[in-house]
């Protein structure tokens, strides 16, 4: 069997895609956190982005790098069609595995945890949903959170 095809298939195994996205983003995020291009003055900064940055004020750079990798990795995974995740329940299961692999412990920054929970609840994600119709909305949310993490590192 074609080894490249094999590798692609393995990468599209449920969960593996998200791990790859998270780990790849975590690997480069240390560089990104210290080398972020300044946000253009004309860009509208979303409330979520602003509050994420505020929640992480004073956070260690190592943690910001990990968080950036996690959030942007999740957004990338959603944008790539979220292979292996049909519902938000599936997504949370895969996310939990990704957190385990990355070594991130929950609630290290309680204000950020509250913010993410509030934003997800406010958008109606307290109940399980099919993922496809809401993937773009979730992608935007996690991109905004990643943006806030970038801002906190400046």
């Amino acid at each position, binding site marked *: 069997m074609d080894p490249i095809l094999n590798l692609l298939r393995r990468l599209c195994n449920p969960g593996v895609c998200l791990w790859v996205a998270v780990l790849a983003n975590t690997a480069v995020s240390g560089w990104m956190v210290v080398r972020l291009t300044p946000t253009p003055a004309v860009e509208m900064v979303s409330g979520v982005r602003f509050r994420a940055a505020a929640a992480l004020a004073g956070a260690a750079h190592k943690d910001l790098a990990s968080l950036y990798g*996690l959030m942007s990795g999740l957004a990338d995974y959603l944008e790539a069609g979220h292979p292996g995740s049909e519902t*938000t*329940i599936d997504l949370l299961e895969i996310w939990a595995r990704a*957190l385990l692999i990355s070594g991130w412990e929950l609630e290290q920054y309680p204000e950020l*945890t509250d913010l993410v*929970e509030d934003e997800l609840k406010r958008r109606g*994600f*307290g*109940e*399980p949903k099919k993922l496809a119709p809401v993937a773009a909305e979730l992608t935007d949310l996690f991109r905004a959170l990643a943006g806030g993490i970038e801002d906190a590192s400046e």
Partner: protein
Amino acid sequence: MPANKHFGWSPNPEAVGDVMSQLRHPLLGPASEAIKGSGAGTKALLWKNVEQLVGQYPVRTQAIGDCVSQGAATAVDVVKATSIQSGGAGIWRAETASEAIYGLSRVEVGQGKLGRDDGSYGAWGAKAVKDYGTLVRERYGQHDLGVYSGKLAREWGVDGLPDELEPVAHEHLIQEISLVETYEDVRDALANGYAVTIASMQGFRDVRDDDGFLKPSGEWPHQMAVIGMDDEFERPGVLVMNSWGSNWVSGPTRHNQPPGSFWVDADVLETKILSDEDSWAFGDYEGWPAKTLNLRII
């Protein structure tokens, strides 16, 4: 059992006790630790899941005293639609046919004890959908269930569901039923995508107040279904779907509720309806697991 075409229920503690004695989880309260309190301060507008699948909400109009099967079928629809909209298995084919539930409740569960009189009990309807299953509004061979027929309901209420349809119905069971006793039971069940049938002697007026609620009044020996709840609002309560068509009630509405429905205050629900002890939660999973997600994810 006295029944006219608007009603069809009467209290029968013996029938309720008999059904409860056969259940692993006879009462929702003790069986639902996983969901306890989960509905506090929230709302669950579950009828919208049905609307998303079929468009306009399918309002039922009973033609005989088969309110028990109308309420049960409404609850089944809400549980199925909510499960499907949440990504669960199964596809929506059509609304649930009340005639099958009516026949199964009276003949299979009730062993024909009610003879030719109309009517059934909440417990019998609940046990029918759990143990014998459901059919939907489509044609099954020579049996056309596409449009509700009071005449067919009455026939099946005496003769039972035709034998050839029993295996088909059995493929579509409600997985769990438990008696509900408090507003909190109902609130938490709805918050997790479960629906509730309510049966009691409590009647209501026919003009909703400014908040969409009906004031209790008179006697209705009747079963209906709870298809939504709002514990966020200053008047906590539930949305009740009746089976008398769209025009029997008028007045203000909230949350774009379906025609023919009305809100009931939490205390009225608990003290005047659930106290008659024949109201049942319907679930699509065994054991009332939580279906609200933990979103503390980072």
